[in-house]
């Protein structure tokens, strides 16, 4: 059979395998098959270095590589950076028990999988098959490697006609190429055709991307949500769903979706970086810190390193620098300085990045006890920044944080008021603003109460009872909490309950507030409001009682 004619003696092979025994066993099996040029490495970093220098025909990568990068991460980095030509055969070697976990990467797929234990017989059968299949796409890959996209598209068409069995894979490559080329209408045609034949996952994902890029967010959301439900292992569906939600201004949901994806596969660098970015947008420092820490560890010596993540990480370390235990403070401080240094020396920063970096540096100095140095660093940033208008509102919120720390009350308050006006009706930025101010006022409970009441009232006004409750609940916990904030909090929780959030927790919270307000004088101007809430509450609870018995 033609199978035996694969000229293995001409093929150069790279083996990525952390266990010495497995390495030598693979080598002896391959040499038994006629392979003469073989190199081995025992971790992802060495592998990437080798691939940057040499060209290999076949790469075997173990999936589970001990502590460092896993096989999928290496593959993603390799494909993302175009480190190996399309013609190279990339094979993932996995334990039989983990194969399900490994398969299902829609965007970065290897050419084939071989499951352990690898015997000569299995290796020969599988490798022959994989190479023979790869050969079907030879013309397409050759054109891709020459950056001749139209040539590649034509080769896809030819393959689909000449070998109908490979029509779908050919369309799949075509769809991917067209998306890369931003030729969305043509990509839509392809995915439409495929989905007309069969609802395959990659075509649903492809169509979801087309809808996203063309701004049809609702359609994209529907497609991606259905895919996310199909099989939880298609983590990429979550990535794109998160993008779609963000594009619609649903930042919190976008973050939640990404957090789910991160739980599924915590080792994907870009996903962790995205999560950190979203958490920063949402002002969720805790998630931002965790995601940054993961991302920094994972992106070490990789193409995914970037200044944004370093600066963000340093920023997220500030609460540790300021409030951590002695040991935490020490570690966090030196880590933050190290990150700032890396960002400055390894990257060419733009203005926004320089400002952020400078502000974080100033904060790190100040928070670690070097107040004077901190102030000087802050002044240096201010001179760099004559006009705030060049900064995004998110960056200006960072400036606000620094102002509250370094400038006198009058100046920073004026800046805050002005910024809040600029923010206008942007809900995300409003929330972020109030979180910053709330944190700033943590030592002044009376001022904090006023702030929370103001914000809670606004949120009640626009019927966002969930966030209103979050804000007003905080207010009711303050020692100086008053009847006004209790009544508003009650409004929020009763409405939440009405909207269907009927947890025991809500029930208890409402009852507690009714308890606190029970002695209100009937002559109090706020009494009618309380009565109205009591009535609504009674209706809701009796509804519940009925459904429970009926």
């Amino acid at each position, binding site marked *: 059979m033609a199978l035996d004619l694969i000229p293995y003696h001409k093929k150069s092979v790279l083996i990525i395998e952390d266990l010495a025994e497995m390495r030598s066993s693979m080598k002896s099996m391959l040499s038994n098959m006629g392979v003469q040029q073989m190199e081995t490495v025992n971790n992802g970093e060495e592998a990437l270095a080798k691939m940057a220098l040499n060209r290999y025909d076949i790469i075997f990568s173990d999936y589970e590589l001990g502590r460092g990068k896993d096989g999928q991460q290496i593959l993603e980095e390799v494909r993302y950076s175009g480190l190996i030509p399309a013609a190279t055969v990339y094979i993932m070697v996995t*334990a*039989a028990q983990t194969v*399900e976990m490994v398969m299902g990467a829609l965007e970065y797929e290897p050419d084939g999988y071989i499951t352990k*234990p690898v015997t000569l017989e*299995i290796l020969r059968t599988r490798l022959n098959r994989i190479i023979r299949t790869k050969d079907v796409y030879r013309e397409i890959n050759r054109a891709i490697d020459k950056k001749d996209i139209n040539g590649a598209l034509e080769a896809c068409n030819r393959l689909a006609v000449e070998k109908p069995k490979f029509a779908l894979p050919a369309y799949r490559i075509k769809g991917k190429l067209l998306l890369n080329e931003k030729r969305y209408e043509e990509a839509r045609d392809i995915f439409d055709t495929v989905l007309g034949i069969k609802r*395959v996952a990659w075509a649903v994902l492809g169509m979801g991307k087309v809808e996203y890029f063309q701004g049809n967010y609702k359609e994209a959301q529907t497609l991606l949500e259905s895919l996310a439900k199909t099989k939880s292992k298609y983590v990429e569906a979550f990535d794109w769903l998160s993008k779609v939600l963000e594009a619609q201004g649903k930042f919190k949901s976008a973050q939640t979706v990404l957090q789910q994806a991160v739980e599924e596969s915590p080792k994907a660098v870009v996903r962790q970086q995205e999560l950190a970015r979203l958490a920063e947008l949402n002002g969720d420092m805790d998630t931002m810190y965790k995601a940054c820490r993961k991302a920094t560890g994972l992106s070490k010596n990789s193409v995914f390193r970037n200044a944004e993540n370093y600066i963000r990480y340093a920023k997220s370390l500030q609460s540790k620098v300021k409030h951590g235990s002695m040991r935490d403070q020490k570690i966090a401080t030196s880590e933050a300085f190290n990150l700032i240094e890396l960002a400055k020396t390894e990257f060419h920063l733009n203005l926004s990045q320089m400002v952020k970096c400078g502000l974080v540096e100033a904060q790190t100095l100040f928070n670690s006890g070097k107040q004077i140095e901190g102030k000087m660093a802050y002044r240096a940033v201010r001179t760099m920044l004559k006009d705030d208008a060049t900064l995004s509102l998110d960056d200006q919120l960072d400036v606000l944080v620094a102002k509250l720390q370094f400038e006198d009350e009058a100046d920073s308050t004026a800046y805050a008021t002005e910024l809040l006006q600029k923010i206008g009706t942007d809900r995300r930025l409003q929330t972020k603003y109030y979180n910053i101010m709330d944190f700033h006022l943590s030592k002044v409970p009376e001022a904090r109460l006023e702030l929370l009441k103001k914000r809670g009232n606004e949120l009640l006004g626009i019927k966002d009872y969930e966030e209103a409750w979050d804000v007003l609940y905080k207010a009711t916990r303050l020692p100086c909490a008053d009847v006004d904030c209790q009544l508003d909090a009650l409004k929020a929780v009763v409405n939440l309950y009405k909207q269907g959030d009927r947890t025991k927790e809500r029930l208890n919270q409402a009852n507690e507030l009714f308890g606190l307000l029970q002695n209100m004088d009937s002559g109090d101007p706020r009494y009618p409001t309380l009565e109205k809430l009591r009535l609504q509450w009674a209706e809701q609870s009796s509804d519940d009682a009925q459904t429970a018995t009926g």
Partner: protein
Amino acid sequence: MTHKPQLADQLLAASIHEIKNRFGLMFSQLDQLLAALPLDETTSHNAEQIKSEAEFIGAELVRVLASYKTLEGDNLVNQDQQFLLDFLEEKVARHANTVRAHHLNLDFDCDEELDGFFDAGIVNIVLDTAIYNAVKEGAKTILLSADMVDDFFLRIQIHDNGPGFPAALLNADIAQSGVKADGQSTGLGLYFAQRLIGQHTEGDKVGRVELGASDRLTGACVSLFLPQ
């Protein structure tokens, strides 16, 4: 059947998942250990049997989990294009240990051009179940075959040279009474196979499992019909 899983069920599923992963790790360590040991012919055969049993347990856990997830109703099947030659070749290669441990003759037969749509994970599990059942019944030759049959169904068959199915099992409707079918694991495995394959749909057509006598070998034949 799409009721929300109870906490106890979820706990069980999570626990099986954990056991499966730990087991996988243990198995690969065992494998390395056995490879490093100097074994004579007898001990080496014992080692093969241990490996085969370990794989069986691993496959069983995977099957239980997949059945659970499918029955839970949250996960729809993923019917993607598969090339049968590659698929069956891989299946046979993956059973190298079973073959060695039980002196089995395991082969496959299908047209080189044949392709079809199905959830590879699910069909893998069902094939494993059928293969292990056949081995348990003492089959020494097993043949996997695939072809396209009437009304656009892809048919995948597992033939063996064992004693064949008992009449009681053949006459019973596995979809209805499979769980009770003498309480044996063969019946249970087939019941879940039916449930899993039944998740494959195309238009009004639904996937099904049929039991019978093999027309290629002397024993039993399990046929999976997958709508295209």
